């Protein structure tokens, strides 16, 4: 349609629907777990360790120590959400403005920002998490702050690349001719045009953060032993791979689903925010 | 002489559509050997799609009906398999498109890109291709072919790049050279030289020319015969002199009026 009729409301894309449903389910599970889980997450059913699904009132069975898997998954969803929001939140909120700044300032200062970024990129995230844990004690928050800080450079790089492209366009020149200052250009023209890149980076980083949480918890640098998390479930039951592999499937499935859900949601939002793709 | 033996390209009832919208509608024409045929029309008239169909380069996702036959090739350029088409393109058909930067691979030297088209079609040995490359670069008016062949596309100006694209197009002495707006992205003085070169080189290798442009003056300066396309249809065809001096279709008249910028009054 190339006529001049008004733009119509667009139906939700399947990507957005499916992604939204998956992420919605995780949020719901996390919310309910504050008040209720089928079993207590610290109760160990000593009579039925590593039980199959449906045994003795355990919907998805129990893990190698006899804890209820369904309950752990629900409570673990809280950790997953917290981890993602904290780590990716830090990275995007700090990285996006810095990336825009690096893309808009003169070549000298831009070079300076980018070299600092490279230095940070070269510093291993795990080492940063270790250092943080030594100073502030090991907790989920310190671990995820470290992961968040370590993820900032990737946001800076992606956003800067997008900003440089936007800054060469004639519409930015037109805005300058209109008298818009740098800050206004960053807010009105650059940010809306790089937001799609930010969203994709968010969904990628979220997936990495979930996996990093799992690894750090295993090393004792993340969630304490009483805080259920999907990553921790994987590592604690890794020995069960030989005799009851089904235990590992549930947290693995949950992680895969969460990653898929936020990627779909990210892509869906990116497309929805792009007027070229929404209104046809 | 037998008329059909002179026909190099025969396009019959070519229809190209995307979904239910026809972009090119029932187009038929022939290109004779050694002929220079121009297609003129506004953007969206279907002129580029028509030339792509003749090159066997229709983009995926478009449906095409009708036939495009090249003399001496036993497949239809519209329905032939990609493998068979690839053997025709670059060997019997050379192409020059508007944007000379994207037509060249930025990571390969000029020399390798020109030589590759000959090696791929087995018209030259590796060594022979290297020697011929230098001749081709010289023939397209590029100074210092030796140094040029070692350069990368970004080191060249727009006009130089378009000369390289032309060298690739004529490397295998094709029967047909297709040029789609080859000079639109170039400066006027460069445009004049590149046009002259296209005319000269197509003659040199005995190639027929299919020249697509929205610029009537350019088409007039290079072509013998012209098709006027409008809204996916051929609305008029004939010799350049006839069509442009005695246009019959109102759209051709409109194009002529819009092209002529000198005769319009003060405030238009």
């Amino acid at each position, binding site marked *: 349609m190339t006529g001049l009729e008004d*733009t119509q409301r667009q139906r939700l894309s399947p990507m957005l629907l499916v992604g939204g449903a998956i992420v919605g389910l995780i949020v719901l599970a996390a919310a309910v777990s504050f008040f209720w889980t089928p079993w207590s997450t610290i109760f160990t059913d000593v009579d039925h360790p590593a039980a199959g699904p449906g045994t003795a009132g355990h919907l998805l069975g129990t893990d190698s120590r006899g804890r209820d898997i369904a309950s752990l998954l629900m409570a673990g969803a809280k950790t997953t959400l917290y981890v993602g929001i904290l780590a990716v939140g830090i990275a995007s909120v700090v990285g996006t403005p810095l990336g825009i700044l690096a893309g808009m300032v003169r070549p000298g200062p831009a070079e300076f920002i980018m070299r600092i970024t490279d230095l940070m990129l070269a510093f291993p995230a795990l080492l940063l998490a270790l250092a943080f844990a030594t100073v502030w004690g090991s907790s989920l928050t310190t671990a995820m702050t470290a992961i968040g800080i370590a993820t900032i450079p990737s946001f800076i790089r992606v956003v800067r690349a997008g900003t440089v492209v936007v800054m060469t366009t004639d519409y930015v020149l037109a*805005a300058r001719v209109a008298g818009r200052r740098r800050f206004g250009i960053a807010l009105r023209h650059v940010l*809306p045009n790089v937001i799609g890149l930010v969203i994709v980076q968010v969904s990628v980083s979220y997936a990495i953060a979930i996996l990093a949480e799992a690894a750090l918890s295993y090393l004792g640098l993340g969630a304490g032993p009483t805080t259920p998390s999907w990553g921790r479930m994987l590592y604690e039951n890794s020995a069960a791979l030989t005799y009851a592999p089904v235990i590992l499937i549930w947290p693995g499935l949950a992680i895969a689903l969460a990653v898929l859900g936020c990627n779909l949601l990210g892509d869906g939002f990116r497309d929805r*925010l792009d007027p070229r793709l929404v209104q046809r | 002489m037998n008329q059909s033996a002179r026909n190099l390209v025969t396009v019959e009832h070519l229809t190209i559509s995307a979904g239910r919208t026809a972009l090119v509608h029932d187009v038929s024409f022939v290109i004779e050997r050694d002929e220079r045929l121009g297609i003129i029309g506004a953007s969206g008239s279907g002129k580029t799609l028509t030339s792509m169909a003749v090159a066997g380069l229709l983009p995926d996702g478009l449906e095409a009906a009708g036939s495009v036959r090249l003399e001496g090739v036993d497949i239809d350029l519209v329905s032939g398999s990609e493998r068979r088409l690839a053997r025709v393109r670059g060997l019997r058909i050379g192409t020059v498109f508007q944007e000379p930067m994207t037509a060249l691979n930025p990571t390969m030297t000029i020399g390798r890109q020109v030589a590759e088209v000959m090696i791929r079609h087995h018209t030259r040995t590796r060594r022979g291709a290297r020697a011929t490359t230098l001749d081709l670069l010289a023939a397209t008016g590029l100074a210092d072919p030796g140094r040029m062949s070692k350069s990368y596309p970004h080191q060249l100006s727009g006009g130089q790049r378009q000369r390289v694209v032309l060298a690739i197009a004529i490397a295998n002495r094709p029967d047909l050279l297709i040029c789609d707006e080859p000079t639109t992205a170039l*400066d*006027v003085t460069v445009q004049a030289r590149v046009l002259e070169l296209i005319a000269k080189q197509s003659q040199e290798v005995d190639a027929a020319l299919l020249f697509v442009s929205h610029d009537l003056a350019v088409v007039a300066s290079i072509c*013998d015969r012209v098709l006027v396309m409008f809204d996916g249809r051929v609305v008029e065809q004939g010799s350049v002199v006839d069509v442009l001096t005695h246009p019959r279709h109102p759209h051709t008249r409109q194009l002529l009026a819009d092209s002529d910028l000198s005769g319009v009054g003060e*405030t238009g």
Partner: protein
Amino acid sequence: MAVRLAGVSRQYRQRRRSPFGQPLIVDALSGVTLDIPRGARFGIVGESGSGKTTLMRLVAGLDQPTTGTVTVSGTELTGLREGGLAFLRRSLQIVFQDPMGSLDPRMRVRDIIAEPLQVQGIGGIDAAVATALDQVGLPAGAGRRYPHQFSGGQRQRISIARAIAPAPDILLADEAVSALDVTVRSQILALLESIAVQRGLTLIFVSHDLAVVRRVCDHVAVLSGGRLVESGPTERVYSAPEQDYTRELLAAVPTLAKGLAAASTRQAARSSRLR
């Protein structure tokens, strides 16, 4: 004078190839002196690398000359910072070449046209946008849509609407019709011309296309390699060029008359050969 350039040069420092090499200095513009009278339709013609884009940027206050002075509407731009250029932002607007690239794809047409008004704190935005849309021949409903929903010619009309909305004195057209078809081109040229006449604007028309400049402009300046080759009334420059470069440029322009002459010669040669 609307615009006055006095001995204007602009040098660019090219990126060094190695940390130890000398930076290469490129003269984009050297020693250009030029007066553009108020109310003129002034063409600036040149090929790529001629310095016409640099000149445009200097006049628009988007760049500063290395030496020389640029004066717009009696105020010297040299050394002015963005704050001091506020008068220029009100009095000078640009229509760009690429009708897609000059419109922010994420903004609605209304917001695009309103941007200069909004930034400069000019009131009555809705009325001004409606007037501008009407003057460029777009329906009022166009304001609610996004740039990609329009054809190339319509987008160029949006670009013109944005430029004339703040009622500037000077309109700079940078290759404004180079990306358009002949038919759309002649419509946009007619539109620019009628707006310039109606509003008594000074139109500075930067282009590589000599035919287009001849059609629109009463004065023309020819640039080559950063230098001013010649300037004068359009008809004089086109009918009696003083410089070799101008002659070469004019000879290279393909015209229908020249093309047809060549075509008939070829046709004659062909038929005699067949006979």
